[in-house]
């Protein structure tokens, strides 16, 4: 800011008189859409009712009809557009900022993906359209299933689940059904201490008791630990590979063997598949079930928290239990089959998050087999490069080689009281979205960094410079870091306050 010290606080003009009125005394944020509303405005003009015909309200009668939607927004179309356009500019996003959020694979989302999903033939297709009028969609799903099977080395794919967590639950319910079918009712699932929170949560939903496996001092799971825990009551073990420290589980094959020996299944959490394409296939590791997060590895947009898609792959033995509907090839072409007697059933309506499937398929054929393999290699390169360059002040939490992400530590908390959270907030001032922090839980003050293959070396270098700078700031001027961010429209947001006194909706005055 040119003469920042001299001038009073300035708030941009909003569609809201108060914003400009009391700029110094009354700091406000962006008005809510409800606060921009004014009685009698409208952003939509509808074709008028057929003259003389009774209205919808008359047809249904007062017994069935509600009062007027008091408090609902009343704005013109330009106001609506301006409001949400302005909101958009308050976000950091992968397309605009470096966003090395570990475990989230914030890679570039090709714009062509969205265009393809918006093609009339896909976007306007009703899920109940007769299959012979939807062969393109079904064919796409079939090609995507085949591609994902090839990438993972699994025998069968279900595109049904809506996200990674739903994929986990789907997979665990398949495991359950599998054991049931064999007349067994196993009650436990083993989960490493480094697991993502969705893993234990999915276990509970699937009716399993969680047994925690401890990572060894080198931050991976030893087959011996699994052997110690697994028994005839173990339904499965969920292993994230690479694990949440970014480390390839070196004993994965032995773990699988240990499980299989006891009749338990290996569930592989494939959220980190961006490390493995063309590098190692879950199917070859002995995985019986794997979920993929298309919104991570396969470049569908995260959308500020979804929608995603969480297909699962399984071995032949588990295929009968996959959710319905299943794609089926008939003489008349593709159709959707819901008659699958051993299936766990449905996890949702219709046929999966099809719009996301289009995007993922578009991405996969753009990269091709070779490109996918290269993507994983370059993702690994970037993570190892950052790890190496940052090692002086942000040493890796583990001595093991990193895959597509690295988890770092630091001594600032001890030296100057600057926490990982504060480092993260300070990064915002430099236009960088912070890494994932405080995860995995086993690493104190973790910084989990996943640069992805779509970032340049220059960006990584600049990130290193920025991190080094923050380290120096933390030593020389810790308050500066502790009170970050300073360069955004907002200062530090009080999250504790939000939880203490929850305000979860706007209320008219």
């Amino acid at each position, binding site marked *: 800011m040119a003469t920042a010290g001299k001038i009073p606080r300035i708030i941009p003009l909003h569609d809201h008189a108060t914003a400009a009125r009391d700029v110094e005394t009354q700091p406000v944020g962006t008005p809510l859409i409800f606060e921009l509303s004014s009685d009698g405005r409208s*952003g939509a003009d509808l074709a008028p009712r057929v003259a003389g015909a009774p209205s919808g309200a008359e047809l249904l009668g007062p017994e069935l009809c509600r009062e007027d939607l008091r408090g609902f927004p009343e704005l013109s179309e330009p106001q609506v557009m301006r409001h949400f356009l302005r909101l958009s500019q308050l976000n950091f996003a992968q*397309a605009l900022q470096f966003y090395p959020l570990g475990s989230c694979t914030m890679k570039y989302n090709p714009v062509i993906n969205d265009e393809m999903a918006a093609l009339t033939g896909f976007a306007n297709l009703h*899920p109940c359209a007769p299959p012979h*009028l939807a062969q393109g969609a079904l064919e796409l799903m079939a090609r995507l299933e085949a591609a994902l099977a090839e990438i993972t080395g699994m025998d069968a794919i279900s595109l049904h689940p809506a996200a990674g967590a739903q994929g986990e639950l789907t997979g665990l319910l398949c495991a*359950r059904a599998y054991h049931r079918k064999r007349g067994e009712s196993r009650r436990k699932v083993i989960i490493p201490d480094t697991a993502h929170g969705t893993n234990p949560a999915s276990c509970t939903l699937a009716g399993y008791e969680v047994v925690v496996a401890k990572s060894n001092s080198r931050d991976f799971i030893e087959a011996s630990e699994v052997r110690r825990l697994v028994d005839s009551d173990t339904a499965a073990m969920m292993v994230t590979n690479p694990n949440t420290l970014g480390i390839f589980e070196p004993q994965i094959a032995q773990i699988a063997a240990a499980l299989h020996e006891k009749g338990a299944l290996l569930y592989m959490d494939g959220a980190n598949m961006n490390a493995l394409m063309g590098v190692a296939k879950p199917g070859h590791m002995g995985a019986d079930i794997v979920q993929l997060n298309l919104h991570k590895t396969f470049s569908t947009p995260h959308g500020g928290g979804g929608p995603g898609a969480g297909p699962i792959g399984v071995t032949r033995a588990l295929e009968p239990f996959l959710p319905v509907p299943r794609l089926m090839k008939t003489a008349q072409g593709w159709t959707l089959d819901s008659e699958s007697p051993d299936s766990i059933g449905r996890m949702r*309506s219709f046929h999966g998050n099809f719009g996301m499937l289009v995007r993922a398929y578009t991405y996969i054929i753009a990269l091709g087999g070779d490109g996918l393999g290269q993507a994983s290699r370059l993702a690994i390169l970037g993570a190892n490069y950052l790890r190496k360059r940052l090692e002086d002040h942000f040493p890796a939490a583990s001595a093991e080689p990193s895959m597509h992400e690295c988890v770092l530590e630091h001594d600032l908390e001890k030296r100057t009281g600057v926490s990982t959270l504060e480092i993260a907030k300070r990064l915002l001032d430099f236009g960088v979205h912070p890494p994932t922090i405080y995860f995995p839980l086993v690493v104190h003050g973790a910084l989990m960094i996943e640069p992805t293959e779509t970032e340049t070396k220059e960006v990584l270098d600049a990130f290193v410079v920025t991190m080094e700078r923050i380290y120096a700031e933390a030593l020389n001027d810790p308050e500066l870091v502790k009170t970050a961010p300073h360069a955004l429209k907002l200062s530090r947001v009080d999250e504790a306050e939000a939880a203490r006194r929850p305000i979860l909706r706007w209320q008219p005055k």
Partner: protein
Amino acid sequence: MRFMPQTEADIAAMLKTIGAPSLDALIAHVPEGLRRRAVINLAPGRGEAEVAEELCALAAMNAGASGYASFLGAGYYRHYVPAAVRAITARAEFATSYTPYQAEASQGTTQAIFEFQTLITQLTAMDVANASMYDGASAAAEAVLMARRVMPKRRVVALSRALWPDYRATIRTYLSALDGIEIVELPFDNTSGATDLSALEAIASDALLCAVLGYPNAFGVIEPLRAAAEIAHRAGAMMISATAEGLSLGLLKPPGELGADIVVGEGQSFGLALQFGGPGLGFMAAHTAHLRQMPGRLVGQTRDRDGRRAFCLTLSTREQHIRRERATSNICTNHSLCALAAAVYLSQMGRSGLRELAERNVELAHAAADALAARGIRRRFSGQFFNEFTIATPRPAAALEAAERRRILAGVALAPDYPEIADGIVIAVTEMNHHAEFDALADALMERR
């Protein structure tokens, strides 16, 4: 490859810094047996023009997406999506951001979700709504699980048979792993098409956990939600209403006013394209009393250090990343961008527009029903309906085929899911249908009578 910026020189320099001789050296620790077989046997990468060509060809193979007068509904509805919705959801700032963990860098997303939450509470007349679920069916399943957390001792779940088959199936799957749950299907009244409440009455005991009704239901019939809620409440059980046609809430009495304890539904009608059935938008609203048992993300209002209003994810101690196996749900990624679309859509339609559109849907659907009735095609059920109704026709499959030949997708046959309604076709009519289509529909349906 156009998405990957690393030049040969970059790779060499980075490898040198790392001290690795090659890219493959970085993965040398991955067991050789795995690496050797890991090659992905797919066609090589292609340029954007070639990729677009393949996808356009596939899209063109979906004849059902255009050129037909469509009366398909059954849980997913063809409404006009205003350009503003597409323009906003296409914003890279919204589309390519993650779940808003860093509040200061996510005020766009958090505020929009806060607005979405508010809009849903207004539509449903409930206290609180979450940031979205995957879809209506899974939201319904999560609602039952939530009810169970509220009243862990109760075990009977009453599902209306007139609830969409997908919703019932999803609920069954979600409950399949839980011990001791008993699902009772409430029959529907074969005349009105509404749930037979005497069946609910019959099981209304202190074992009853909740009753789940569609509102309107799978036949398009507007359920007597208030009466159902009263029965459930008398037994101390919870009433869960599920709405697949979100637009109906613009005109019908809100479930919250009728006594629903948890209100879920599908928000696809609020600005989302059909997309062959997904992604849609699950919504869930509840009373403050049950807030801590709600699944899913919640955005709350707070302040920044300088007193400015700000928004952030809150009450996350309910959630998997904090509470792990004791979380209220395993949901992580939800349907945020769809919630944004709904927020834009509902804001643009607005107070009067949404109601007017809902009324227009009723008017058109009733006009269609009248046009069919005038030709002797009668409604299967007498219950009042919003924009979807069921007709009775002797050979539904043949009728649908005949209509298709006239380029009409006349509706969805009930028989596959309801063998007891062998003659039923569910017909949805929205503002996208024209009066002129109704006679053509009647002609087509009469062809094989």
